[in-house]
Structures are given as C-alpha cells and as structure tokens.
C-alpha cells in the first residue's frame, strides 16, 4: 500500500503552517521528513494517520493493506505512549482486544512481536521498570502486533540518549532488513535521517514547503555509524537547512 499526499495546506486561524505539500510514500521504503522546528512536520504526520484534518488537499491510500493487517496506519510516538498501569504484554494486548483477538491467539502474536524486539524476558514488567530505550521497543512491538501497512514514526528516538539511539537505529535497520516495512519517519536529527531513510524530504521553515527530496541509494544494512558517504549526504542536508533553522530559531513564538 502506497500513500500519496495531494496538495496539503493547513493553517491554524491566520497562522499558516503547511503550504502545498505533495508527496508519495512508496511501499517498502522509509521516507524521512526533516525540517527546522515549527515547520509542521509532526502536523503532517498527524494528517497522514487521520488524527487531524488539513484545510486543503487530500491524503490517499493507494492499493489495499496487506492480508491480516489490523491497523493500516500505525503510530510510534516520541514519548512512547504506553499505559503505565499495564504490563508490557498488557500494553500489546490492548491494541488486539478491540479486534476480538484474545487468549491463545493474542498470546501467540505477543510472543512473536516480543521476540522480534528482544523483549521476551520483560513481558510481565511494568513501564516504570523499563529504561527509555526499552519503552520505545515496547511501543515498536505494539505497532508490529497490528501488522501495519505504514508506520508513522514521530521523532521516535528524540527522547533517548545518543547511545540508546544508536542501538535502536541498529534494531530498526535489522527489523527492516528481515521484513521490509513502509514508514514515514519524522525527525529533526539528520544523522537518523541519513541512516534510516531511503528518501529524505527536507521542509522549509514555517509555512512548511518541500525544499528538496534527497534519495539515498545505499542499502540500509550496509550503512554504518560514521560512513563517509552518509556524512556527505548529512552535510548536504545541513547546508540546505542551516539558514532555515537559524531564521526559525529567531522567530517569535506564536502562543
């Protein structure tokens, strides 16, 4: 299933945040959206998943989601959004219960996704017992449990320290290599974008418009921490963004 954004524009009252964005997210690819703060990248992600409605333009699903898909558009949030009163397996069963999956069928899915995210030993733990990196793994396991067609990742690693971030990037790459998934990955971290993105979309500062789309052909599994060709891409992205970021930083906050 592909996703197409068709002329998306949006403003809150007189405050224009997004201007005429058209974009295709092809199946089996990770599309990273980067941009200075306040450029509307998270808003764009909420439009794609149907949590908010744009003033203008349409979001289209092209083709039908794969067999057995329970929730085609599935988010992974920056702050994990785990229910603190449910254990790790309880948090995953939460999203299965409404689809009538309980008992042995649910246990089988939970076992599978916990194994894929290396969480098998933590099934009974409460979120408060887990580190940030582990919590985000639980959120990834929960997303995998509903067999999404497209994963919508809103700065998923931004709340983590840089070492945990490296570890989780490796995990995401190996998850993708074993079974390619489609994802829209919003981040302000260019290193994450060049490491995980097949395609990087650079947005301008508010109102967000597409400045450039950079395709990175190197296969994900071959990308490594500190690759010189990735560094070149990252440098190119930063050159595109530097002035935008400075101007965005100096803008008065609209509250």
């Amino acid at each position: 299933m592909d996703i197409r954004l068709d002329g998306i524009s949006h403003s809150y009252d007189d405050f224009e945040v997004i201007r005429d964005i058209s974009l295709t997210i092809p199946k089996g690819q990770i599309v990273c959206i980067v941009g200075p703060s306040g450029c509307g990248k998270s808003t764009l992600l909420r439009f794609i998943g149907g949590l908010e409605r744009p003033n203008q333009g349409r979001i289209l699903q092209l083709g039908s989601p794969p067999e057995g898909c329970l929730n085609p558009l599935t988010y992974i949030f920056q702050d994990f959004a785990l229910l603190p009163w449910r254990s790790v397996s309880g948090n995953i069963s939460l999203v299965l219960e409404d689809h009538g999956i309980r008992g042995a069928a649910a246990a089988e899915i939970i076992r599978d996704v916990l194994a894929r995210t290396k969480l098998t030993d933590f099934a009974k733990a409460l979120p408060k017992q887990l580190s940030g990196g582990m919590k985000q793994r639980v959120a990834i396991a929960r997303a995998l449990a509903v067999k999404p067609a497209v994963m919508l990742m809103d700065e998923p690693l931004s709340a983590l320290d840089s070492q945990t971030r490296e570890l989780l990037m490796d995990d995401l790459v190996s998850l993708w290599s074993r079974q390619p998934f489609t994802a829209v990955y919003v981040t302000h971290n260019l290193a994450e974008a060049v490491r995980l993105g097949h395609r990087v979309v650079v947005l301008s500062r508010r109102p967000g418009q597409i400045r450039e789309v950079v395709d990175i052909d190197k296969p994900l599994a071959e990308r490594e921490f500190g690759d010189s060709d990735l560094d070149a891409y990252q440098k190119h992205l930063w050159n595109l963004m530097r002035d935008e970021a400075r101007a965005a930083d100096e803008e008065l906050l609209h509250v």
Partner: protein
Amino acid sequence: MSEPIEKTVAFRGGGFAPQPKRWIGVAVFIALIAIAEWGTRSGWISALTLPKPSDVLATFQELYASGLLFQHLAPSLSRLAVGAVLGVSVGVAVGVSIGLFSIARSGLVPLIAAIFPIPKIALLPLFVIWFGIGEGSKYALIAFGTFTPTVVATYGAVDNVDRTLIRMGQSFGLSWWSIVRKIVLPGALPGILSGLRISLAIAIILLVAAEMLGAEYGIGAYILEAGSLYDLERLFAGVVILSLLGVIVSAVIGWIERRMLEWRV
C-alpha cells in the same frame, strides 16, 4: 609564596524532602493524652475544661460492656455506607461525564460551583420534608455532602489524563468505549481516590449532623445527647469513635491506593 589554603567545601544541599517516620505520630498522641491526664489529675486543668482521659476510657469500656456501643455504631455505619456509596457513585458518574462531554461540562460545572459552598447541614430540614424523618433524610444528607467534592475531584482527574495516551488509543482504532474504560478511567483513578479521602471525611462530619434530628441510636445521637447534658466523658468517648472511624477510612483508602496504583512512578 604562601601555602595554598585547603578547605573542605561546605555542604549546602539536602533537605526539602520530608520522610515519613513511623512512630512519631503515635508518640504525639501519647504525649498529648499523657499531658491531659497529668494536668487533670494534678488539678491545673479543671474537670470542667477537659475530662480525665482515664475516665473517658472507663466510659468507653462501660459503653462496650453494656452492648450500647454496637447499638450506636451499627446504624451509624450503615448510614455512612449507604449515603457515601450513593453520593460517591453518582458523583463519579457525573464527574466523568463532565470530563468527557462538552454539554455536561457547560451545563453542570456552574451548577456544582453553586451547590458546593452550601453548608449541607442547613438543608437538613428540607431533606426531612423531602425524604421523611427516618433513614431517608440521613442518607440524602450524607450522599449530597459527598457528591459535590467527588464530582470536582473526578472531573479534575479526567482532565488530567495524559492526552497522548488518548491519541494513542485513537491511532490504534480503539472504540470510544474502550478508550474510556481502558485509558480514561484507570488514568483518572489516582485523582478519584484522593478525592475520596476528602469526601469520606465529609461524610463522617455530616453523620453527626444527620443524626441531630429524629435518631434514637447512632454515634451522632450519642454525642449530641452527651453534649446537651454536659457529660464530657461521654462526649469525648463519642468523639474518639469518630476520629478512629476517620483513621480507619483513611487507612483503607491508603491500602487500596497501594494495591491499585502500584504502577505509579
């Protein structure tokens, strides 16, 4: 060249973190009672100012031995239970709907603000007319008194449920009812339980007021009768029962909190 001065850095952090110390609370009670006992025995507290604690204890024992204690306690506890269960359950339901629906919020918040400051005791005669001099008016007074604080605590608690968790529920396609049951209510539970502490203390206060009219038995009736006779020993015995009731209720809520809110950080 003079010798460099070597000095330990003075500690200036710490504090501002009170810790519970188990026995100090008990010690305060014992010390106060001991002072009262000593004062009344040695005579610098006159018998009219304060009864002798040992006399109060003796009165209490008499009350227990004669079986009157349970004759007073049973109707009081049942009034407390029925009234509080009524008030709290309707209060939680109204509070949750204020937390969830715009119309309920706009319509009921001003009404609750208007009802809250009314001293419920002042309405007792009205309740007697509406619900009769029997148990009905007593249930109504306690229920009404616990209702308003429960509503306010509950809708505050619902408002404070983390919105990102609700967005998460929506993004996974959970039904409205599932979101309310599995995300909103458990998320509001800590606030509802701390509101319950206040509501139940108010229920105990109103118990005495409820038993002012037309009650033969009950802790409140016992205290009022002792008060009108200036029988300070019996008055204090009754007051001690009410305090104990308050301590027990608060301990039970503490126990529920520890059991059900284990997940809190």
